[in-house]
Every structure is written in structure tokens, then in C-alpha cells.
């Protein structure tokens, strides 16, 4: 009798999802640094205490390889993706791997960071510029062209698109610019520039004083500077490349409700303010960028033909690997 009653209660509980808070576990695949994600999950749980979030973190390129392998085998444990760039997301969308979320709360989110079919949504802006070691450089570089000089390129390190999603976009954007193009990278390679792995290897080398200059995403350099590393960052006047770190729900997730809650939260003002505290440009209107960053309107973002980049992706990586090893 008693077990019958318990079963009845359980059935009743399941039948009234409108009142229930989302609960259960979701797995988030992300390229955002771990310690940051730990605080993100903490803040998310303040609003959604019943959702348990498991984090899998690695570079975007590697993450994509892992996902491909998992899809090939039938399924992935991932419910939500929070990865560097829209190009990677578009590839997944074209393979029909993403769930369309038509009712996502998009108040204040600019339309150009949202996928037309509502499968993925930009959460922040990450730009790529130049970092330099303040102990080694007297005259800070102001443009990409400043990096071409042999004495500069000889002490320059950059992230490789074979590891970093931001680097995929950056190399793709730069090579599409008429005044830069592959000639820019060929010149850098000829003058002795090297490619590390992700952006992490770049900040390491520059902060340690092994290299004087680096190409890097802004928050890593700015956060290191804030912690006391002898580095500074410039947004070159020729323009920067930018990624939007979109969030998306994997089609076939076994906890759609909680996954949607995570997306909702990522697009909320609370999350945007937390991103700013972590050193990111906000994407939502009315939130100001971190201290020491230029105003969003003042930011000069180089134009990017995303379709062309998608088509060239493989060739770009091969060409880069040919120039810089790998």
C-alpha cells in the first residue's frame, strides 16, 4: 500500500512540470578556463540550485574533434556547448546537431550575434590583439604591420588554429584582409615568429620574458596584467578579430529543461556582469566593458566573411601548419 502511495506521488510530481524548477544534471562542454567556469557554475546555482552542472573543458578545436568522435559513435554526454566561435557552431548546426530554442530570452542581445534559426547565441565578445612584455619593449606596437619588422617578428609568439578557436577566426580574418593576407603570415614566419598551442602558451612566453610580443585574446593579457605580470595589451588600429563565445543546446539532450535554464542564465544580465568581472567585453546593451578596455562602439572589428572562412577552414589550417610547423 505504502509503495503504491509513493508511486502515485511520484507520478503526480512528474505531471506538474510547470511549477517545478529545472533539476537534474547537465554536462557543459566549454573552452572557457576552468577556474572561471567554477565561479560561473556557482553563480548559476544561486539562481537554479537544483541543476547539477558538470564541466568538460578543453580548447575549441580539440573539443570539436571529441564531439565528432562521439557523434560518430552514436551519442555524446554533452547537453550544452559554450565554445569559442560561431564558425564551429555553424558546422555543428549544418550537421543538424543543435537544438533550435525559439523562445530564448534575447532582450538587449544584438541580432548579429544570434543565429537566424535560434540554434546558438553569442554570450560575450572576445577580441584578438597584441600583448607585449613591458620590461622588454620601449615602443609599444600599434598596428599589425608593426609586427612584420624582423626584430619584432623574431621575438613574436602566436596561438595556433590547430588548438584555439579564437586563432581559427583570427587567422581566417587576417588572411581575408587585402592589406594583410597570407603575405603577413609568410613574412612573420620568414622573420622567425613561432606558433605555440593555445592562447595560454602565448601569455606564458610573454609574461616570462621568453618572447617580447604575442598575438592573443585580450582578457588573458589584461587579467595577467591585473595580477601583476609585466605585460600590456594593445587593440591595433588596423582593427581586431572577434569571436562571440556562443552557447547552444545539443539536439537529443536528456535534460532539455535544465539546458534551457543554462542558456537563459548565460544571456541574463547577471551572467553578463560576471563576464565583465572575468575580463570579457559584454554583449548585452547597458553593461559597460571592464576597466581599461575601450568602449564597445570605439572597437574597430575587421570584417569577416564567415562562409568563406568555413569553406577555407581546412586549407587555412594546413597552410598555417606548413608555415609554422605541425
Amino acid at each position, binding site marked *: 500500500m505504502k509503495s503504491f502511495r509513493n508511486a502515485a506521488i511520484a507520478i503526480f510530481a512528474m505531471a506538474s512540470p510547470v511549477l517545478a524548477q529545472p533539476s537534474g544534471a547537465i*554536462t*557543459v562542454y566549454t573552452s572557457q*578556463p*576552468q*577556474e572561471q567556469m*567554477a565561479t560561473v557554475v556557482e553563480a548559476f546555482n544561486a539562481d537554479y540550485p537544483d541543476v547539477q552542472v*558538470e*564541466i*568538460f*573543458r*578543453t*580548447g575549441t*578545436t580539440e573539443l*570539436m*574533434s*571529441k564531439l*565528432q*568522435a*562521439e557523434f*560518430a*559513435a*552514436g551519442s555524446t*554526454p554533452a547537453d550544452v556547448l559554450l565554445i569559442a566561435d560561431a564558425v564551429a557552431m555553424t558546422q555543428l548546426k549544418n550537421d543538424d546537431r543543435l537544438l533550435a530554442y525559439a523562445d530564448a530570452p534575447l532582450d538587449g542581445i544584438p541580432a548579429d550575434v544570434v543565429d537566424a534559426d535560434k540554434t546558438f547565441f553569442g554570450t560575450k565578445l572576445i577580441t584578438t590583439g597584441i600583448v607585449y*612584455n613591458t*620590461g*622588454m619593449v620601449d615602443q609599444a606596437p600599434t598596428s599589425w604591420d608593426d609586427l612584420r619588422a624582423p626584430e619584432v617578428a623574431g621575438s613574436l*609568439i602566436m596561438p*595556433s588554429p*590547430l*588548438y584555439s578557436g579564437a586563432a581559427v577566426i583570427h587567422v581566417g580574418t587576417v588572411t581575408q584582409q587585402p592589406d594583410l593576407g597570407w603575405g603577413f603570415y609568410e613574412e612573420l614566419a620568414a622573420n622567425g615568429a*613561432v606558433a*605555440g*598551442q*593555445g*592562447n*595560454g*602558451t*602565448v*601569455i*606564458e*612566453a610573454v*609574461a*616570462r*620574458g*621568453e*618572447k*617580447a610580443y604575442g598575438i592573443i585574446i585580450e582578457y*588573458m593579457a589584461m587579467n*595577467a596584467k591585473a*595580477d*601583476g*605580470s*609585466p*605585460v600590456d595589451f594593445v587593440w591595433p588600429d588596423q582593427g581586431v578579430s572577434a569571436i562571440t563565445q556562443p552557447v547552444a543546446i545539443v539536439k537529443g539532450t536528456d535534460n532539455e529543461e535544465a539546458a534551457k535554464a543554462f542558456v537563459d542564465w548565460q544571456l541574463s544580465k547577471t551572467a553578463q556582469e560576471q563576464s565583465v568581472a572575468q575580463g570579457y567585453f559584454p554583449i548585452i546593451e547597458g553593461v559597460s566593458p571592464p576597466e581599461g578596455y575601450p568602449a564597445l562602439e570605439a572597437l574597430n572589428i575587421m570584417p569577416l566573411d564567415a562562409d568563406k572562412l568555413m569553406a577555407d577552414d*581546412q586549407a587555412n*589550417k594546413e597552410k598555417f*601548419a606548413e608555415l*609554422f*610547423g*605541425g
Partner: protein
Amino acid sequence: MLRLFALALMPGDSGQTLGLMRETLGSRAFQSAFSNTLAASGGSVFISTVLGGVLAFATGLLRLPGRALISFLALSPLLIPSQIMALAWIEMMGSGSFALGLFGLAPPPGASNPMYSGAGVAWLMGLEHMPLVFIAVRASLSAIPGDLVEAARIGGAGQGRIAARVIFPLTVPSLAAGAVLAFAAAIGNFGVPALLGIPGRFPVLTTLIYRQLNGFGPAVMGKVAVMALVLVLLAALALLLRQVVLRRLSVPLPPGAGFAGFDPGRGKWAFLAILWLVLLWLSILPIIALTTTALVPALGVPFGLETASLKNFDAAIANPAVRRAFANSFGLAGLAGFMSALVAIVLGWLSVTARNPFAKALSWLADAAFVVPGTVLALSMILVYLRPLPVIGVSIYGTALILLIAYLGRFLPMALRPVEASISATDPSLDEAARIAGAGVLRRIARIAGPGVLPAAIAGGLLIFMTAVNELTLSALLWSAGHETIGVQIFSMQYEGNSTGAAALSVMALALVGLLVLLTDRLGGRLPPGTLPWRSA
């Protein structure tokens, strides 16, 4: 792995037989990586053999004060995962080096770190694999019967002559075998060339595989499989060579009390001083460099009393993933060590004493898994275990089980080799007698072979534990949310540009392993002699 190799033999784009293989082997990237692999491995073997040999003879031949501690330091590279070691050496040799700065030896700012080169890769791999030679030589030294040395002494030979004419020839086979093992390990090494060779533009086969897979995904699986095949062939050649060396050169020795070493005499202190200087340079300074990095608030900030803080440690301990990583790694490594020791006894007995051909083949395959680069092993594991298992219908991918299986596959030889060696050294007549008396296989393993090989099995299990607890290569590809390991955690922190955090975590991991070593060392008195490699004397 068969699945992976089947891919390697596929026709290429144009459809000719073995076309894929021809294309891959003909590519410039492959050829330079191939010659780099051979050069770096060759160089590293030289370093391993010289360092390991000298240290083993110094500690094995002479009764020096503090011998156990010296042996332990000589073995320490085995306990320090390659990426921590690489990190430590980068810190030590870099322009901001606190350790070198003390002596005014730090390179000027902007000078590129000498570790980022082929020579750096060879040096560090040599150091990392040095214990393989050390262990082999020490084991053979302690197997030399004291009676033999005594006989030579009575025959009128001096210590030097005994060492050169009696002892050294007897250890040559194990020196050579250790060197070959070091070569096989160097071919498959990933951590060192990844951290030093990628920024230093010195690609080797393992890093080429990793970069290709990372950048291009499953599309290049076939190409990668060809490279993996080449690596396995190289390793197989090395192991074949080792078998030949051991069979041709080894001399059966009678059992008896082992040779305990000479009294070092008057030159003792000078010799000790040199030995300690070498050890200071090899094992202690890098750890100091790592620790100072862990204590500075941000990279590039010089270390000093006014900058030092525990911030990085606090942040690491506050991170729930770090705490989980410690629990996962200790659990996995403990199970892997224990299970490997058990399997090693059974498999070793079957292949050596019972001469079961199937077990022999398995024991050979176990070697292959050890020398195949971890990246390749992990990929084959994914290929096989991603789909639900046939009978029970559950996929173990995404669980901790797949990590455990990978660890078992990878580290089994570390227990199997000493156990097999110990079984082949025992007198087969005992087993014969038990068999004639009607004892079954299980009883013979448990009662006759078991007690004799227990020390070797326990030592193997402990070594596996200490190695697996900081494992990276397999974990990097097989870990899943909630099942992170210490190695993965350190790697990702460094990858994210948080080297100070990674250093803090490394220091904690090393401290825990050190504590463990102290504990087992305490137990060492109760274990049979020879159980703890640094105590074998």
C-alpha cells in the same frame, strides 16, 4: 588497436594499394618528424644510459652513507610526470629563473629558453627514462652473488679489478636491456616533446599525431594510423632487440645472498660531494624552480619574500574540480596498481612456468601497449569502447572505467616484467615437484610461485601507482566531466596560461606522492627485501 591499423592499410585518395601509407610516408612533415624522433630518442638513450648506469654503479657498488636517499632521488624522475618535469625545467632554465638567478647564471631576458629545442627534448627524455636503466642495473647488481665477489677477492683481485672484470660484465645485459627499454619509451614519449618541441619547432611522431588529430579531427585518422604503425614497428624492433640481448648475453647465476657493495674507503667524501652536486642539479633545483613559480602571484613577477603568497594554492584547493581530480587519480591509480600486480603474477606464471603460448603472446602484446604512444592507445580505446558493449549494452565511454582499463593496458608491463624476471630466476623444479604431487594450476600459482614473486609484484604495483597517479597522455583523451585526473588538471591549467596555478597543483601532487613514498618506506622494513626499488641493496 587492430581497428586502427586496418585504417592504416586502406587505399589512398587515388585508390592505389596502400596508397594512404605511401602518401603519408612520403610527406615532408612525416619525414622530418621521423628523423627527429630517431635523433631525440637516440640522444636521450645515451643520456639515460650514462646517468642511470653511473648512478646505479655508484649506489650499488659502494656502501655510501645515505644510499637509500640517493637511490630515491635517482628514481625520482619516474615519479614526476613528464609535463611537471618539463614545466620545472622551463622555469629553471628560463630568463626569470630564481634558481639560476641565485648563482647569477640565468639567461638574459629575451633569450629564448634553451629547453625549447631538439637538445632540450633529448636531455629531458634522457633524464625521465634514466630510472629504467637505473632499475635494471641495480637489480642485476643485487642479483650478483656475494660468494662470487668473495671468491674473486680470495683469488687476489682488488676492488677495481673485481668491479671491472667480474661485476661489470655481469651487468652488461641489463644495462643494454635498460637502454633499449629507454629507447622504446623515448619513441613513444609525448609529454616532453609536446611541451618543449612544439614551441621549439621540433616535431616528433607523437606530437605530429597529436597536432594532426587536434587540428583536423577524425578525418585524418587513416594518416594518423599509418604514423602509429611506424611507431609500433620501431618499438617492436626495440623489444625484439631486448629479447635477443637478454637471451644471448645473460649468464644464469646461482641463488644466494646478494652482493652488498664495497666499502668506499677514503675517497668517499669527495665522491659523495660530486654525486650530490649532480643530484642537486638533476632533481632538486627543478623542484625549487617549480615551487618558486607556485608562490608568485603572476607569471613574470620575480620571486622574493615580498612577492611570495599562497594565493595559487588557495585557488587550487577552492576549485572543486581539483579536489575531485585528487580523489579520482588516487582511486584509479590504486586500483590499477593492485590489479596489475595480480594479473602480472597469473600471466607471468602462465607464460614463463607453464609456457602457455597464448599467455606468451599476451605478455608480448602488453609490451606493445606500453610503447605505443598513449595518444594512439587512447584513440583505439575510443574506437572500441565508444559503442555500447555487446552483451550488457552499456557504454563505458564517459565513465571512469575506460580510464581504468586504459591504465591497466598501459602500465601492466611495469609489474609484468619484474614478475616474469623473478619467476624465471626461480628454480623450475619446485613447480615440477608440486605438479607431480598433483597440485592444480591455481594452487601452484598461489602457493609455489606466489610467495616468491610477491616482492616483485608489490614493487611493480607501487611503481604503477606512482606513475599512474600523475598520468596525462591517456587521461587527456579519455577523461570526461566529473572524472578529471590530476594530470589533466595540471595540463589544462597550463594550457589556459595559468602556469602559476599549474605549478601550485604540481607541488601539491608531488608532496602527496612524496608522503606516500615515506609511508611505504616506513613499511619497507616489513616487506621482503627488494620490494622498494630505492631500497634494493
